[in-house]
């Protein structure tokens, strides 16, 4: 039967996909429902305009403050900017389960005794999680639509769709990173620790870099992957296709590299 690991991974991920999707969707829905009126938004934007640049950047918004006076701007700051770090938690958790999780609990031993090349385990699972990631983002988008329906607010849905879509490449990239680390390190907790550290340091570099204008911090922030997946900027200026393609290519390349790493090493040799 074609792609058994892919199909089985999808089947087993149905419940968790729904949970993750609903959790994100609930928070998105709440943001839309709590959207302040136009007058309040304008006050907010005016207030921000009076702030020094360092504070404006600390809020995670760009320098186009008129954008803040829009409903999309509020959602950009209140949801996408605030939640950025949690979106990549999903590929971190799922990427860990691709090889390291199963290796640690011993089920990989049984799986690899079946007539299945090692690379297929990685590729099929990775592909399956790309599908579940897509499903989660669709559910998230559904949460926003429901919020729009319930609150009766007018949103530029094309902008929202672009922001939601923009999450996919960086999630794909982080899953590639996690898959590679998982292929090399057999213990799930170390994989989680290493990649979580990478994410947190990236996040910190990005947040502090935003505020440290003209300092080393700003220069350092360019090595953070968050710098290139900023949904707020996407909502203001549209998708940055070079970043999208770069993340997707990097994610797949890391995954392919992990198949090689995984193929060369002993399984559960400790």
């Amino acid at each position, binding site marked *: 039967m074609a792609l058994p690991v892919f199909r089985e991974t999808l089947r087993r991920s149905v419940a968790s996909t729904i949970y993750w999707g609903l959790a994100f969707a609930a928070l998105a829905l709440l943001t839309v429902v*709590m959207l302040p009126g136009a007058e309040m938004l304008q006050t907010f934007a005016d207030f921000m305009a009076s702030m020094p640049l360092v504070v404006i950047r600390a809020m995670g918004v760009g320098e186009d403050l008129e954008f803040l006076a829009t409903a999309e701007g509020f959602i950009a700051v209140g949801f996408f900017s605030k939640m950025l770090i949690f979106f990549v938690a999903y590929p971190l958790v799922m990427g860990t389960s691709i090889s390291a999780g199963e290796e640690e609990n011993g089920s990989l031993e049984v799986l690899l005794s079946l007539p299945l090349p090692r690379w297929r385990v990685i590729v099929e699972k990775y592909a399956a999680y790309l599908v579940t990631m897509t499903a989660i983002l669709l559910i998230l988008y559904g949460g926003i639509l429901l919020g729009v329906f319930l609150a009766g607010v007018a949103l530029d849905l094309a902008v929202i769709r672009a922001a939601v879509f923009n999450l996919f490449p960086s999630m794909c990239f982080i899953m590639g990173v996690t898959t590679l680390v998982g292929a090399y390190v057999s213990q799930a907790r170390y994989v989680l620790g290493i990649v979580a550290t990478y994410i947190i340091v990236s996040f910190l570099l990005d947040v*502090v870099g935003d505020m440290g204008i003209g300092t080393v911090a700003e220069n350092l922030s360019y090595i953070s992957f968050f710098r290139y997946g900023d949904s707020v900027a996407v909502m203001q200026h549209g998708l940055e296709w070079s970043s999208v393609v770069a993340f997707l290519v990097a994610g797949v390349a890391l995954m392919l590299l992990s198949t090689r790493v995984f193929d060369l090493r002993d399984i559960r040799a400790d």
Partner: protein
Amino acid sequence: MIGAIFRGCLQGNARATVYWTLAISFFGFYAVAIAPDYEGVRQYATLLESFGPISTLLGVSAEVLSSSSGFVTFIYLDYSFLYYSFFAVIAAISISAGEEEHGILDWQLSLPVPRIRFLWERTFAFLVIFAIVSFVSGAVTWFSSFLNANVSLDFWTILSASLNFLPTLMLVFAVTLWISVVVRRRNAAIMLAGFFVVASYFLNGLGDLVGGDAGAFLRGISYFHHYQRGSVLIDGLNPANMLSIAAVAALCLALASLAFQRRDIGI
């Protein structure tokens, strides 16, 4: 022997304690080391105050934000507390759900130790671990301030901030413990407790943005708001607030203990 589980837990988590201390210390170090000259920001302090309630939208008061230590507050006390929260979740999960799923809990509870003691000694061990991580990281942050002429940090203020972490961390710990004892399955417990942390963080931020009564309500149901990270730097410790949070944590711990005492293990 009384204290054996406590010591075992401390020893077993020695490595995790080192890693978390390093990670949080890095936060403090980085926040202090790169903090810019805040002269420009100071000029806006009066302006910010004039905006009244809306000035809270950044999650910290203007007074805090316009000081050099305010920058450290914003980075160190805010973001590091988010990661501390996940540490508390991981720690609490390891106590029952994690060990139960790995089959370790069965034989541990076959030892001549009451279940309650098993839970409480480990909880106390994690309180000590949180204190170690918090105080060492605070000390590193304070030492780092000597590297940046723009930042001047008062040792006792940082010490207070470190102490202020503990009741809220224990609250997250106790809530997670309660969840893990009730739901039993490790992954489900992680998911629920993780959502509790993320939703609290999110609601606090959203409450800041929304403002007004609705915003106050959103902040009110988030433990991040009650943690009062900003005010500790200006007004010092708020013992009443800390005791209230500790009392809620104790209540959750009691509920977790009760549930743990009554339920089946490892089925």
